[in-house]
């Protein structure tokens, strides 16, 4: 159907002659309220509460969260976890992440593959055991990590392996989802410059489609480990 007619039809059904013009900012329909109830919008936790709640919520979802006082403690924690999992191949998302978190040393005993470019990577990552990524934000209320598609960040590394390890900082944790939007909005909502994908991950992949019996690891990872450097303390 013709686009013009499509919109004309909607407007007519709403009792208007012409469809409302979306380009003129002034034409935005007036609203009494936007978003969550006011009490929720005012809800904010302090650093420690955010950290504790994030860890507790992720654990409730079947994931795990470990908090480290220093970056080097985190590195040791990651090394221990990798030793325990002893994956034949570790996938990492690219960019400056490894360098920033100084993970080269920790990863060096493993065979590591960095996500470079789709589609070539897909086949190779499809059967990888462990994926290590950072995250852009996290949400304390729900134990969620948020990964954006961005230069150098192959976010599929979080989805294809059976174990997903997120290396993150406590300062990335927000209280609730609305704050994440505010941060993304601050970078500009211009659609051409938004990341093509923002993915909100809350615990391991799950399904209850077989006789309502909950199982994890259906398509995405069966385990999600968050290693958190408590940068608020240092």
């Amino acid at each position, binding site marked *: *159907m013709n686009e013009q007619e*499509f919109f004309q039809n909607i407007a007519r059904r709403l009792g208007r002659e012409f469809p409302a013009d979306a380009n003129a900012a002034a034409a935005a329909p007036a609203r009494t309220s936007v978003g969550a*109830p006011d009490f929720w919008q005012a809800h904010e936790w302090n650093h420690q509460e955010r950290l504790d709640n994030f860890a507790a919520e992720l654990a409730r979802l079947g994931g795990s969260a470990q908090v480290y006082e220093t970056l080097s403690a985190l590195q040791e924690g990651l090394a221990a976890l990798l030793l325990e999992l002893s994956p034949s191949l570790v996938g990492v998302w690219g960019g400056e992440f490894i360098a920033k978190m100084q993970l080269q040393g920790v990863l060096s005993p493993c065979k590591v593959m960095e996500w*470079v470019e789709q589609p070539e990577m897909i086949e190779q990552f499809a059967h990888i055991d462990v994926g290590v990524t950072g995250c852009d934000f996290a949400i304390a209320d729900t134990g969620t990590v948020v990964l954006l598609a961005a230069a*150098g960040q192959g976010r*599929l590394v979080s989805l294809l392996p059976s174990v997903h390890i997120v290396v993150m900082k406590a300062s990335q944790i927000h209280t609730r989802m609305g704050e994440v939007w505010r941060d993304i909005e601050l970078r500009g909502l211009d659609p051409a410059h*938004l990341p*093509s994908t923002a993915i*909100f991950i809350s615990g391991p*992949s799950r399904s209850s489609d077989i006789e309502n019996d909950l199982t994890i690891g259906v398509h995405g990872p069966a385990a999600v480990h968050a290693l958190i450097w408590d940068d608020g303390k240092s």
Partner: protein
Amino acid sequence: MSAGAKDRTSVIERSHAALQDDFLRAAVRFTTDRLKDRKHGATEELGRWEEWRERGREIRAHTVSHLDYYLRRFVDNARAAGAEIHFASDAQEASAAVLGVVHAKQAQLVAKSKSMVSEEIHINRRLEEQNVRVVETDLGEYIIQLANEMPSHIIIPAIHKTREQIKDLFTRDGGQNLGTDTKALVTFARRKLRETFLTADIGMTGCNFGVAESGSVVLFTNEGNADMVSALPKTHIVVMGMERVLPTFADLEVMANLLPRSATGQKVITYMSVITGPRRAQERCGPEELHIVILDNGRSSQLGDDEFRDVLHCIRCGACLNVCPVYRHIGGHAYGSVYPGPIGAVLTPLLLQGEEFADLPNASSLCGACYEACPVKIPLHDMLVALRRRAAGGPRTKRAERAAWRGYALAFAKPGRYRLVTRMARLAQTPLQHDGYIESTWGPLMGWTNSRHAPALAPESFRDRFSRMKQDVRTIKSDPQ
């Protein structure tokens, strides 16, 4: 049995079949009870649920009443992000738009994630007619596809299937020595569907919400399949109902709180993907092309109809199914279309004209449980009455029924006539009654008396007795507090 409207049966006939199926009834009862309990727990834990619900209703009502504005913004912004938009006034145009992309890409294999709207346009059938293979990747949908059936629940499509049946279906699809334990079955599906994700030419999804301020498509899944379907193949096609829009991300936060709690009692959905255009040049993953097919298919006529506009507020959570006492006993297939339960009983007759759907609005006791459960407060029970009212004047209504209600109005509109009629009935019932009850299967109320004893009219009505009653009114104080 592949139930549904392919056979032109009535709701009564279809529900008769369902009522004989003890497994189905037990399975539906078991699962809906659980979902209901979990939802209850999740909303209690959140607290102030009614305030959330009211916000949900406000947001949906505002958006739908300004749909021309918000859909325009959504479209403009999605285009600015690089998406290609197609408009479809009905199922056929939507299928044509999808097929257009499929042909242009010379696609052989389409991987799908669960989407009610794609069920609505029967896209799988259209694609298969063109020798394009379609694979459903949501575990429940995959089971249903192997069984060649329709989903019987909006959220849990295979609610009616046993693990034995699922094992047999998977075995036919190449599973070897499968057990019936969930882990084994899921492992098979994971392996099998992984191949599909990796080799599909096109990924196809629905759209839980579209965000107008950014042109983003938002997908909710627990399994992670929508994210794979949208990110792995080179082309991603979204089919969305035109009413799926929300004004802002802030509004999405409300839906992200309402939807998973209402659907499965989860505090949060496992994967929420916010997709704004295809992958950008500097990015390292995502599809090269994003097509969004925006579907009307009867929605605009609901938009123009004051009595039914609110049905467009629906966020397809399935909560109304889980609390519905009718759905509980007859399951989803008896409703005969892709939308079962109370929402289906309203939506289907609005969308489809067939005889086989005509009785759907009558398949409700109007108990109001659906309204109470609905996270956006759609008054489904009132809509069912409105549908009955429209049908009452129509050609499908039996003359006897109309005459009966005319007779009722005639007799009950005047107290004198009412008294006369009830006295006559009292006389007429004498030979039928026994011990204050009518036990025989009897006349026009046979449906009642088949399974229930009916009370006989009292020997004397209250109004006749009242005039002789002596009232002894005590002067007292109310309870001391």
